[in-house]
């Protein structure tokens, strides 16, 4: 485990934690961007350059901006007076802690069997493109249809209803 790994892990976990505990919703969205950037750095650290830059483009470039737009359109930036956490926050926290305990236990018990460090795989963007239009062409087409449907669906759902047409 190198120093770089610990630095990126600290950045990502701090960003994720801040995006879930801060009171102001806009600050949460900005902390979320930090967490996404940390995950992109993880992907680059794992020699998955294409996935890392796709993460930066899609999450920091699109999803984070979309979240900020949604917050500003719904007046979510105003901090509610009666707290930001739900009435059942204790149960939610307990469930999350239990999930982490189970996952951590499973990982630590299988850690000796996991493969160790291997040399970095040499993967070029050309190989990824060949795989996308060769072996993975059907999922690619399905994702294209899904994105089109999601785009049209999101516009229709969020479109302003005219008075009396309900």
């Amino acid at each position: 485990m190198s120093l770089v790994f610990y630095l990126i892990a600290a950045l990502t976990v701090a960003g994720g934690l801040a995006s879930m505990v801060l009171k102001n919703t806009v600050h949460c969205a900005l902390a979320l961007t930090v967490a996404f950037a940390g995950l992109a750095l993880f992907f680059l650290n794992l020699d998955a350059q294409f996935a890392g830059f796709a993460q930066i483009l899609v999450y920091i470039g699109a999803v984070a901006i979309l979240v900020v737009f949604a917050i500003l359109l719904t007046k979510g930036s105003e901090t509610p007076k009666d707290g930001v956490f739900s009435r059942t926050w204790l149960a939610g926290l307990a469930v999350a802690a239990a999930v982490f305990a189970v996952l951590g236990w499973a990982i630590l018990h299988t850690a000796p069997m996991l493969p160790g460090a291997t040399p970095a795989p040499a993967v070029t963007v050309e190989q990824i493109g060949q795989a996308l239009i060769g072996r993975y062409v059907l999922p690619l087409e399905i994702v294209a249809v899904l994105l089109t449907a999601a785009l049209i669906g999101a516009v229709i759902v969020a479109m302003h209803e005219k008075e009396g047409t309900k």
Partner: protein
Amino acid sequence: MTPLAGYLLVAALIFSIGLAGALTRRNAILVLIGIELMLNAANLNLIAFWRYGPHPELLTGMMFAIFSIAVAAAEAAVGLGLVISIHRHAKTTDLDQMNRMKG
């Protein structure tokens, strides 16, 4: 500890943070943010298994992660559209106040 175990632990931690946020926050947008964090933690697992797996040249885990990113983007767009629509209808994004199925 092998590098793979470290990545899996960090992914489990991010997943749990996202789950805790999705279960405890009142604002519907922050619940969506929590779900996005959970999806990203799963992506980190996929990439880590691809990197340290026996056949990285087959690109299976990387392709899975790339498709997962695309599906998560579609999910975010539809989810935020729904939140805006609900806010227009109910004038709130507070999930504790949304307790009716009929508008």
